[in-house]
């Protein structure tokens, strides 16, 4: 008998095998420093609009402090159904086809656990959101990466999907617009991909959390594409579009059989999403439209500022068309993305996220969030610029030649 436990042998090897998030590692480094301007934040810099917070307080005053039904407040599900129908023309029955989740995060986990069996494969674009691969692994399945790069505008194609499919492939997950690249897929491209998904009888998991934050063209909602409603799991939430990250509320919409299977896991593991957050989400859908539009306009203006800043710095950066991230190419500095981020932090106190946190394909890039004030963005770019000049002078840079290497604004718009 012994008093110590060898946890290495007690912990599920699947969990043991998961690498801690690259973002987490970098976070520890940043947390110790003062005076840092952070472009590393993956959430809105706005606080939740007051009318939403106020509605939540009112709900508390009225005594909304209990569990809701497992699926979530019916009123909220009805509001979501109306909203999806009005925005994208896709209809869901609020009684059986919508589940309120604790953020898209829970929606992702539940979706994967509901459909995946050991050995199944999930197609995941890379770079993309940090959770997709670990959640796949924890469900016992295998991530198969679809590698995107500036050459293909960080966009997956039907051909890439087709090529990656094996008899074990179960689903494709897509985040459109993408975190970290800001790339979006237009309707044409999605139709082609959807065609393959249908022909190969796969499931399309569509993470549309940044859908409302689309600045060029219109967002296409995957289940609204012909023949896709039944085989698509639509995941969305309130975190980004209504500046509600800390509330933890989102939803999944899809075929009744799938939603009721998913609800089984939810009812035993989560019971329901917090009632306070559900009340707030309802207010967001009812009266949050104009406030959201104002936030989107502001992101868009900052986006232009960011595009220009990278252009002036001579860092190639495809035009980000959605979300609030830019993903500049830092390979010309000769630094790895982690070294770049670390040195930029230490020398100039600007935090960006190394691209490799989003998968191997992110190596050579950094994610800069423009969910920051104009003042902070302006100052951060000034500092980044002097960092780059200094690196260029020290001869660290392989191909970086300011002026010569500079891309034109016209090119930026065409590269993606």
């Amino acid at each position, binding site marked *: 008998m012994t008093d110590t436990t060898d946890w290495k042998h007690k912990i599920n090897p699947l969990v043991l095998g998961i690498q801690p998030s690259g*973002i987490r590692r970098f976070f520890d480094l940043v947390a110790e420093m003062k005076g840092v301007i952070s472009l590393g*934040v993956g959430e809105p810099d706005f606080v939740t609009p007051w009318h939403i917070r106020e509605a939540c307080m009112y709900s508390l005053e009225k005594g909304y402090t209990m569990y809701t039904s497992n699926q979530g407040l019916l009123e909220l599900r009805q509001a979501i159904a109306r909203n999806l129908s009005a925005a994208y023309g896709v209809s869901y029955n609020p009684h059986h086809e919508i589940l309120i989740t604790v953020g898209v995060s829970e929606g992702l986990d539940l979706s994967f656990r509901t459909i995946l069996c050991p050995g199944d494969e999930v197609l995941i674009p890379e770079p993309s959101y940090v959770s997709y691969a670990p959640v796949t692994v924890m469900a016992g399945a295998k991530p198969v990466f679809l590698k995107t790069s500036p050459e293909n505008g960080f966009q997956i194609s039907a051909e890439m999907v087709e090529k990656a499919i094996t008899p074990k492939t179960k689903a494709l997950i897509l985040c459109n617009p993408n975190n970290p690249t800001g790339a979006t897929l237009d309707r044409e491209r999605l139709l082609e991909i959807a065609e393959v998904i249908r022909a190969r009888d796969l499931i399309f998991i569509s993470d549309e959390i940044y859908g409302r934050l689309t600045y060029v063209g219109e967002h296409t909602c995957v289940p609204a594409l012909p023949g896709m409603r039944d085989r698509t799991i639509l995941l969305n939430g309130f975190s980004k579009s209504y500046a509600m990250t800390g509330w933890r509320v989102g939803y999944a919409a899809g075929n009744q059989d799938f939603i009721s299977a998913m609800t089984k896991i939810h009812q035993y593991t989560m019971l329901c999403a917090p009632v306070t957050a559900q009340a707030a989400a309802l207010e967001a859908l009812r009266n949050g439209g104009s406030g959201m539009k104002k936030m989107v306009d502001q992101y868009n203006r900052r986006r232009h500022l960011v595009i*220009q800043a990278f252009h002036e710095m001579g860092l190639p950066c495809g035009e980000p068309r959605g979300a609030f991230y830019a993903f500049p190419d830092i390979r010309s500095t000769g630094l790895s993305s982690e070294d770049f981020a670390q040195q930029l932090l230490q020398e100039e106190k600007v935090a960006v996220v190394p691209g490799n946190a989003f998968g191997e394909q992110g190596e050579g890039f950094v994610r800069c969030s423009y969910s920051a004030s104009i003042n902070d963005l302006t100052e951060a770019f000034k500092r980044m610029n002097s960092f780059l000049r200094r690196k260029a002078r020290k001869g660290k840079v392989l191909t970086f030649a300011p002026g010569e290497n500079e891309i034109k604004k016209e090119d930026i718009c065409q590269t993606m």
Partner: protein
Amino acid sequence: MSGNRCKRKEILDVIENDARLNPKQIAAMLEMEEDEVVRIIKEMEEEKIIAGYFTVINWDKVGEEKGSAIIEVKITPQRDLGFDAVAMRICRFPEVKTVRLMSGAYDLVVYIEGQTMREVAAFVTQKLASMEHVLSTATHFVLKTYKLQGALVSEDGEEDRRLMITP
């Protein structure tokens, strides 16, 4: 909306809450040329669409005594000139910061700022109440300011509470 009007509105939207943005920043944010931004702003200044640039100051915090009041004013309108002539006379006093014509129980609302309460009171009795065509005034002194020009001025503002790095 015509192109120019649309651009004017976009520029106003951007500078309404931040007068310190420079033309280069504005141009980048709105995908315009810097020269064009400078020209349109100049036009709007000349047309008094942009009437001035101010700093929102919470004088309470400076520890300086400042008296301010909102005064409801009833006046008799004048033939042909309506309320405008009297309003303009009131406007010309430098201590008067804002003057508006209102619907309802009174005609003008006048916001005035002086060095001290006493000064404000003196202005009302000596200048305003005794002015020709002014029928009556009701003065409300400001005791505390919570929000000014859209900005919260209390201690407990909403600072950025986000973590430095999140996914």
